[in-house]
């Protein structure tokens, strides 16, 4: 896409986050969408493009009374919303539509109005992974880490420090689910879920939603809130089967997606003020920092444990508390995007002073797919 040609002009989460038993999944989409339309000062009749994952875009458009000229139901897991942003930007630039609404809603904890997750027994995962009784992401997404730790001499303490630092950020965020400070010993001593992952190294399971509205940057100044320009995007995928990753110590999808986004944005890593890396589990920020090029191979564990990403550090990371401490409905990518938008608007609870560029990086499935969105509150060429 052309850098800064498209802007995010509406962004909001559901009114509540956490445990929302009084709302079905589709209503979580709608609650977030309505809050976002209010944020942008728009009505459903102003929206002519719709993208969502987890529900059909047809269902969401009809439920909200939107008549789309463009729909995108890309569903590659928790980073689907990063891909929606990218696809929407291309569609608007191509003139396929003017104003796109991207929604997420997930009754991840309460399970209201939500279908079951099933892996077909004749799929490749069903034949070659499911029989080994992996019980979902906590026992599957976590498999690569022992190989990473051994190959890079990263310690369990450094892995645990990811959760500790993110809890510090969560402590600054009134909407975070878990806000009490924790230590590395607390994390390592917590209940073991799947060795070496204890409970605090695994994401929360909550209910919630979020939505975004995108339009052409030329119109963006006319909206109530400060526009957040999209300056670079990337996407990729590697494998639906974690056992078939090319190398379990690095994500090919992360590298390809991140490199595309940085190239498109034409920025260097030193220019980045704020980073979001989808943290379903404690190892993901480590993989993300290395695969996006912020740290050399094997350096990210020490980088985090030495407080470079903590409040006051030089690279603020996952400043909402992340999937580990803020919230995680199942497809967390939308919440990472919301925090990047807040940071660029200057409205985040843990605001990074004078932040101008935010990198927002998501994972889909279990190292299956990836999407990267780089945003800025300044148009390219106007950044100070």
């Amino acid at each position: 896409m052309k850098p800064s040609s498209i802007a995010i002009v509406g962004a909001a989460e559901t009114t509540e986050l956490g445990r929302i038993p009084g709302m079905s999944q589709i209503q979580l989409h709608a609650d977030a969408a309505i809050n976002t339309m209010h944020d942008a000062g728009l009505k459903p009749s102003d929206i002519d493009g719709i993208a969502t994952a987890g529900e059909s875009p047809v269902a969401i458009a009809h439920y909200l009374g939107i008549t789309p000229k463009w729909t995108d139901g890309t569903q590659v897991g928790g980073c689907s919303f990063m891909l929606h942003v990218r696809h929407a930007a291309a569609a608007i630039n191509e003139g396929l539509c003017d104003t796109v609404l991207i929604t997420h809603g997930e009754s991840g904890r309460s399970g209201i109005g939500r279908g079951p997750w099933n892996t077909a027994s004749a799929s490749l995962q069903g034949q070659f992974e499911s029989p080994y009784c992996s019980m979902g992401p906590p026992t599957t997404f976590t498999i690569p880490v022992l190989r990473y730790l051994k190959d890079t001499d990263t310690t369990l303490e450094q892995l645990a420090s990811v959760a500790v630092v993110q809890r510090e950020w969560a402590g600054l965020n009134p909407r975070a689910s878990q806000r009490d400070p924790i230590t590395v010993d607390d994390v390592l001593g917590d209940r073991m879920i799947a060795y070496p992952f204890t409970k605090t190294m695994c994401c929360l399971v909550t209910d919630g939603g979020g939505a975004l509205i995108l339009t052409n940057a030329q119109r963006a100044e006319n909206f109530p809130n400060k526009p957040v320009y999209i300056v670079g995007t990337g996407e990729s995928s590697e494998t639906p089967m974690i056992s078939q990753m090319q190398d379990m110590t690095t994500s090919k999808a992360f590298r390809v997606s991140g490199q595309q986004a940085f190239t498109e944005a034409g920025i260097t890593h030193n220019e980045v003020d704020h980073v979001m890396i989808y943290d379903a589990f404690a190892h993901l920020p480590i993989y993300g920092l290395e695969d996006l090029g912020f740290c050399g191979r094997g350096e990210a564990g020490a980088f985090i444990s030495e407080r470079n990403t903590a409040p006051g550090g030089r690279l603020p990371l996952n400043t909402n508390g992340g999937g580990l401490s803020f919230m995680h409905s199942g497809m967390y990518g939308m919440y990472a995007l919301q925090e990047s938008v807040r940071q660029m608007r200057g409205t985040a609870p843990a605001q990074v002073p004078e932040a101008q560029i935010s990198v927002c990086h998501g994972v889909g499935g279990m190292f299956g797919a990836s999407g990267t969105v780089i945003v800025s509150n300044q148009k390219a060429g106007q950044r100070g």
Partner: protein
Amino acid sequence: MNTILKPLGSMVNEDSTAVRNTGMADKSKIPVPKATPETQHFWDGTKAGVLRLQRCCECSQIYFPPRPFCPACVSRDVEVFDACGRAFLYSYVINQRPHPAFDGPYSIAVVELEEGPRMMTNIVGVEQTPQALKLDMPLVVTFEPLNEDISLPYFQPAEQPVEQSSKQHAGGGR
């Protein structure tokens, strides 16, 4: 644990210590794979006590999971062959949450076969602890029937001489 299932052939005999040491409780709770036309040869192999891989006749790429073309060069000229059954432990977790198919914590692992491809498995015949499950430890395949059609490949430590274990666990169909 084999009360409801009859083992099929000597390769999957009930006396396999490896299988006993998995600590399996109710094997009927294991999600049973359903073969497709493209994977049938693999499941026919495990039923007969052999681990089958595929090789590209044009570029020699060896690959898994099964498909009737080479993932490196998309040639359809591929062949099925019997793997040696040896592997090493690439990475794993030990699941602590209860699963009805297991008596206690169990490993969910990825092994790298001597021929190159990796596959998911459970490591059996060994204590399910970080101390006993060492990355890069040598392993050998063993098979366990889930029903009359499907036998699952598992891996166990290759402490015994390799010839013996391949005779014991991977001899059929050769």
